[in-house]
């Protein structure tokens, strides 16, 4: 069973993500409220996939990805960024930070699951 970490400062969005992932069969989901929390949780566990929001207090999502990529166990793990922006700028930033892919917010559950399935099956 794949272990997932979702990082978002909005309780509601974490709930939505969690629900959608559960429906898709991913029941081992851990939640973190910001980058700092996410990094701390990632450090004590070994997640197979991390989905993170970009704009968060304390530590933003892109910084989090940069930090995660420095940790050997996460250097190659898939990390998806959840973003409301779809601009090239965002993509450049996302990619540069080391993210595997992006999901646009608001997300459609099926789309989210498709993206998750693909990165996890690789």
């Amino acid at each position, binding site marked *: 069973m794949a272990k997932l970490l979702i990082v978002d*400062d*909005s*309780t*509601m*969005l974490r*709930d*939505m993500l969690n*629900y*959608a992932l559960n*429906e*898709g069969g991913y029941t081992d989901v851990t939640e973190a409220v*910001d980058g*700092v*929390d996410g990094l*701390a949780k990632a450090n004590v566990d070994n997640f197979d996939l991390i989905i993170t929001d970009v*704009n*968060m*207090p*304390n*530590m933003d999502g*892109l*910084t989090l990805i*940069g930090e995660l*990529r*420095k940790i*050997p166990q996460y*250097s*190659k793990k898939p990390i*998806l960024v959840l973003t*409301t922006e*779809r*601009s*090239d*700028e965002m*993509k*450049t*930033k*996302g*990619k*540069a*930070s*080391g*993210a*595997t892919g*992006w*999901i*646009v*917010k*608001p*997300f*459609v*559950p*099926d*789309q*989210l*699951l*498709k*993206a998750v399935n*693909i990165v996890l099956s*690789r």
Partner: protein
Amino acid sequence: MSFDISKYREMFIEEAEELFESADNVLLEAENNGSLTDEEMGQLFRDVHTLKGSGASVELKLFAEFTHDVENMMDKLRNHKIEFIPEMAGVLIDGLDVMKEILDLEVAENLTRETFTEMTTASLEEIRAYSNGTVAKKEEPVIIETPVTCTPVVDEVLDNDNFGFFDDDLNNKKENKSYGIFADDIDKDQNNFGFFDDDLEAVSDSFEYTPIDKEKENFGFFDDVPSLTPDAIMKTNNIEQKENTSIEVPIKETAVIANNKEEVSSVSRPTVPRASRETKEKAIKKASTNNNIRVNLDKIDLLMNNVGDLVITNAMLTQFSSTIEDSKTRNSVLERLELLERHIRDMQDSIMSIRMVPMESIYSKFPKVVRDISKKLAKKVEFKHFGDNVEIDKAMIEGLTDPLMHIIRNSLDHGLETPEEREASGKTDIGSITISAEQANGQMIITIEDDGRGINVEKVALKALDQGQIDENQYNNMTDNEKAMLVFGAGVSTADQISEISGRGVGMDVVKTNIQKLGGDLKLDTKLGEGTVLTIMLPLTLAILDGLDIAVSDQKYILPLSSIVESLQPTSDMIKKIGDGTQDLLMLREEFIPIVRIHQLFGLESSFENLEDGMLIVVKSGNTKVALSIDEFLNQHQVVVKPLDKNFRSVEGIGAATVRGDGSIGLILDVVGIINAQMNIEKNMNKARKAS
């Protein structure tokens, strides 16, 4: 699969309230001191960004659409594409107000596109003007970005079979997908396997991103963007000491041109702006304090209840162990039980501390209200608050916020004068309202002070007399402060004209009732022309109270210690009878205090006829005192309060219950209730007397 949107909307509304409050407060401060720090701009942007993203996620399209413009302006401020000028704060505060209105209407499904346009046009014009730099200080150069067309953020996501593409996004014509995968780095990683042990080599390595998969149209890949390794990015922030200079140079170059939007699309730019590095450093420092979880208050109450049961069980055990005959065993059992009791008490304290939240959580609601009302009334106000970190029982916040809000409204409306009036009476034109909180003598003391015109106590007293709240005798004997307290009576208002803010005469009595419900008390000090100080005294918690066991006939009751003024054994000359001879008065140091026979109140057989054979306990609530006639008082102890109305039903004269050490139920007297009942009796007597 789809979401239960209504459920998430509820969550969103709750979340939105906090975000609005947070953003409002930053802006209010900015409006006051005319500046906005980078950190504050970052927070503003995040708050509004979250509002947009979450709002869009729960299908509040119009809300998200308007919020997009507000966010856009904040984004530009954050990135210094436009410079902050003080007037912007007001524009953004108004923008947030429009957002709130839209949110309310859209959630109620009561918002048409026409109304939306009507509501937003004015605000949008302003926001866009500022966003595009057309309104700005002339001397400051403004980098004008290509105006962003207001594109609906949520575009037919769910009504579209095509998995919700964002096909109207101007910047993204090539990649109309709702998610994408940054070109595969896994292959590359495998090639580079082993490099991860060596920072330097990993840094110098630059990944080549190539698309790996293009399943249907739902995916986006990047093949034309030069890339940086994560490590290289971190280097631009000098976080890593070992640097590869050869790669640093190009990054700095891109950083410079990154300010120019047109070039940015073709060049990669460093991801981590300076500000976020600062935030990050701060975040790491704050990490320990940031380990918070949200817990439902009910769960803590349950925990508190469990510990309460533990206290009771412990008391039962202690009582039972005293029946152990062998004294050696008995003593060692008791010794260990004492230890247990201490641990339970520690646990009780810990749980209490979970329930405590800083006063800040109440204060944070006020600046916005003060601003809005003072603007409406054209008064100048400086609002100050002290004791932000003083902790208060979370359970009290709900009951306390409304009364405090009402008091502040009242101070603004009736207390403070207009700038002209103030100047005419030799004051500065800016009025002041100060709220402060402190813990003293096991009580929470909150004071609200204004330097306004004060309360005309005579006017209040005459009005109360006129309305029959007090009689002439009372009127003649009242001190100024007692007269001032009359504003807390129902229907008394000094306002000659009813205003929108307050002044209907309802409210202050509600304030008093609410404070008393929390087991608290009020005090009012006012000086005509100088101002008013309202002091609220509250118990630190609603969960535990110090009680005194009193015996009434064959029953035992618990009296909250905080309400007791004094106790005495009366002599016959201290007791006077009035009315038809059924009402007794205690004459104590030239003060007449009505006597309440607890036996009578609860329908118990009295064990004595003459009051001087029993004890009298003087209790008070506010300025009203009564003397309770009881048999005797017993011991004093802490009790865990269990609400009666939740478990049984409310009973007049009984505030709550507790479970005693022997497992029996103890009833806690409700002093406010008893006093009110007594006052009603007196009122009826007065009426009957007048009628006859």
